[in-house]
């Protein structure tokens, strides 16, 4: 789950990290009113992507008239696929130094990792690549946590001077927020030191672990909607993962690995997969809804069904699928290859109900599906 800045920043405030005063607005007139109240401000597009600055979605305004003009320009822009529909009007702060901080799940150490740099700002990814020394990596043992003395030690020699204690305090608070909220990534870029000695978060990028949604219910409601096509959304609501791919050979398989492999095989034999759609794991009883989603894609010319049952029982998947197939009676050919748990029963269902013979080799089923799609084109 990703969050827009205006949703993420109040979370920082609740854990004691300072953020500038701001107001959320939906149109240019409201932006002008808010700017009149706030004074010198920044007009910021609210979309869940890190490319706002470079795309022209963040502009400084000295007056409320200027804020209104910027708002008119930014509203309706498309940034990284997201249409800008709302803006944050945020007070400017007197910046003495821009820092970078991130707390994230580190796959390599299977522990949290804090990243810190004195070179905050827009091009921090480039800093990390060109000058790795400038990005300090602070490993954290998840069982021990991260306290003030650890933070102080980690910041030694950075050149923060008398601000070191205040920054260390913010690091501890950010780590706490990361842990409490089940974050995958909590990134502040920039975290600024102001002329008057404050530490303020000017931006906040927050990604929460989808798997933690059941215990982060209040955050789920605030998450930015994912960019999905109508079909992807429909599948999502049914608890299925569907990705449209643009080809003509439909894919229905169980398990992520087998589904990707089916797509690879279609490509290898000269076809183009129409979709990724898997009904493995706990979803193995959902073949009916899965089929109806697949068939809504009008570019499909043939369907490959590749079941290799382990946990997912092929007889259960096949029974549901065959019933749905007879129900929906689509006008495209279907090709089966079925192995693993429940195989004998599943093959029998296909033979008896559809009068079809499943292919023993996946390759043969794929070749047949690719040939049928080419013929229909």
């Amino acid at each position, binding site marked *: 789950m990703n969050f827009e800045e205006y949703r993420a920043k109040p979370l920082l405030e609740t854990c004691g990290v300072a953020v500038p005063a701001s107001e959320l607005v939906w149109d240019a007139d409201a932006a002008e009113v808010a700017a009149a109240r706030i004074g010198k401000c920044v007009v910021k597009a609210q979309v869940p992507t890190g490319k706002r600055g470079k795309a022209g979605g963040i502009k400084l305004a000295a007056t409320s008239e200027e804020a209104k003009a910027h708002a008119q320009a930014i509203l309706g822009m498309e940034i990284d696929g997201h249409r800008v529909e709302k803006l944050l009007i945020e007070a400017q702060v007197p910046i003495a130094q821009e820092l970078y901080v991130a707390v994230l*799940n580190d*796959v390599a150490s*299977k*522990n*949290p990792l804090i990243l810190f740099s004195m070179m905050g700002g827009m091009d921090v990814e480039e800093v990390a690549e060109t000058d790795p020394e400038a990005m300090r990596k602070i490993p954290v*043992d*998840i*069982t021990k946590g991260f306290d003030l003395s650890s933070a102080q030690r980690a910041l030694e020699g950075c050149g923060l001077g008398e601000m070191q204690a205040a920054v260390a305090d913010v690091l501890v608070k950010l780590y706490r927020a990361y*842990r409490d909220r*089940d974050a*995958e990534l909590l990134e502040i870029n920039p975290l600024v030191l102001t002329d008057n000695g404050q530490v303020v978060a000017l931006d906040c990028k927050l990604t929460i*672990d*989808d*798997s*933690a949604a*059941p*215990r982060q219910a209040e955050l789920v409601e605030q998450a930015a909607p994912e960019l999905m096509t109508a079909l992807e959304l429909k599948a999502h609501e049914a608890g299925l*993962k569907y*990705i449209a*791919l643009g080809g003509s050979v439909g894919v229905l*398989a*169980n*398990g*992520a*690995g*087998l*589904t*990707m*492999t089916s*797509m*690879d*095989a*279609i*490509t*290898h034999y000269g076809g183009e*997969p129409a979709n*990724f759609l*898997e009904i*493995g*794991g*706990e979803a193995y009883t959902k073949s009916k809804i899965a089929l109806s989603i697949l068939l809504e894609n009008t570019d499909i010319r043939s369907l490959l069904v590749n079941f*290799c*049952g*382990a*946990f*997912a029982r092929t007889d259960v998947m096949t029974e549901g699928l065959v019933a749905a197939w007879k129900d929906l009676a689509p006008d495209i050919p279907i090709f089966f290859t079925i*192995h*693993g*748990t429940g*195989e004998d029963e599943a093959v029998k269902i296909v033979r008896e109900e559809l009068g079809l013979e499943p292919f*023993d*080799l*996946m*390759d043969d089923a794929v070749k047949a599906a690719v040939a049928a799609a080419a013929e229909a084109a």
Partner: protein
Amino acid sequence: MIVRKEHKVLVQGITGKQGTFWTKAMQDYGTSVVAGVNPRKAGTEHLEVPVYACAVDAARDTPIDVSVMFIPPMAAKAAAIDACEAGVKMLVCLTEHIPAHDVMEMHAAAAANAVRIVGPNTAGVVTPGECFVGIMPAFNANVFRPGEIGVISRSGSLGTLVSLNLTQSGFGQSAFYGVGGDPMIGTTSRDALEILDADARTKAVVLCGEIGGSAEESAAEYAAEMSKPVVAFIAGRASPPGKKMGHAGAIVSGSSGAYGAKRAALEAVGVSVADVPSQIPVLLKEGLDRKAA
């Protein structure tokens, strides 16, 4: 370690629907299931084995080598820590969608107690002809039969297909190691390669990878030192970047996790990479023949 029929297995969540179905399948196949866990049914028997309130209690009564968890995601951390504290050697964690912070705590507990975690999000391990632990169709003779090929897979369904392809071509498996589709797993493909390299029954290894992460690159480093032939297949060549392909670990972001880099890393150390799984047996024969020559 490779599970053997002598290993004593505990099933956490034994009384549930899936726990019951798969425990019975494991018992029928030859796995030595000695106890189960369900806090609400402690003191009873299920499938002819005693049920305990926790793994620590079970371990007090009977030696346990391996535990397997049929436990929902939100309860997985507590169950895994319980198993680690019970002193099992190996913990097979089938659960998918465990919160990442919990997974990190599980790995910390495993490290502190010298426990090998397989998974999370694995389909388990199979030693054909002896036993299996998890949710693989070990009992399907078209898919698994005893032999000399070690199989490593991030995905259970792909591992099933590849094992089937091997069996269809006259090969059998010495061991199947499902390492899991999650990004933070306890036993990596590289670790499994090392285990199979040390196994006397294994003559060659098939590595089934996926896009995302760097497990295949890391496995390639180890494969470079191996004398046993290694053949690989990497799923996801036709997958678009930036999308999680079902598994939390299967995502290409930027240049990291891409198909091309994985294939290049493996080929650079002499691992043959198949374009489709059906090529694997052919490449294996070539590798074994080269070695014999």
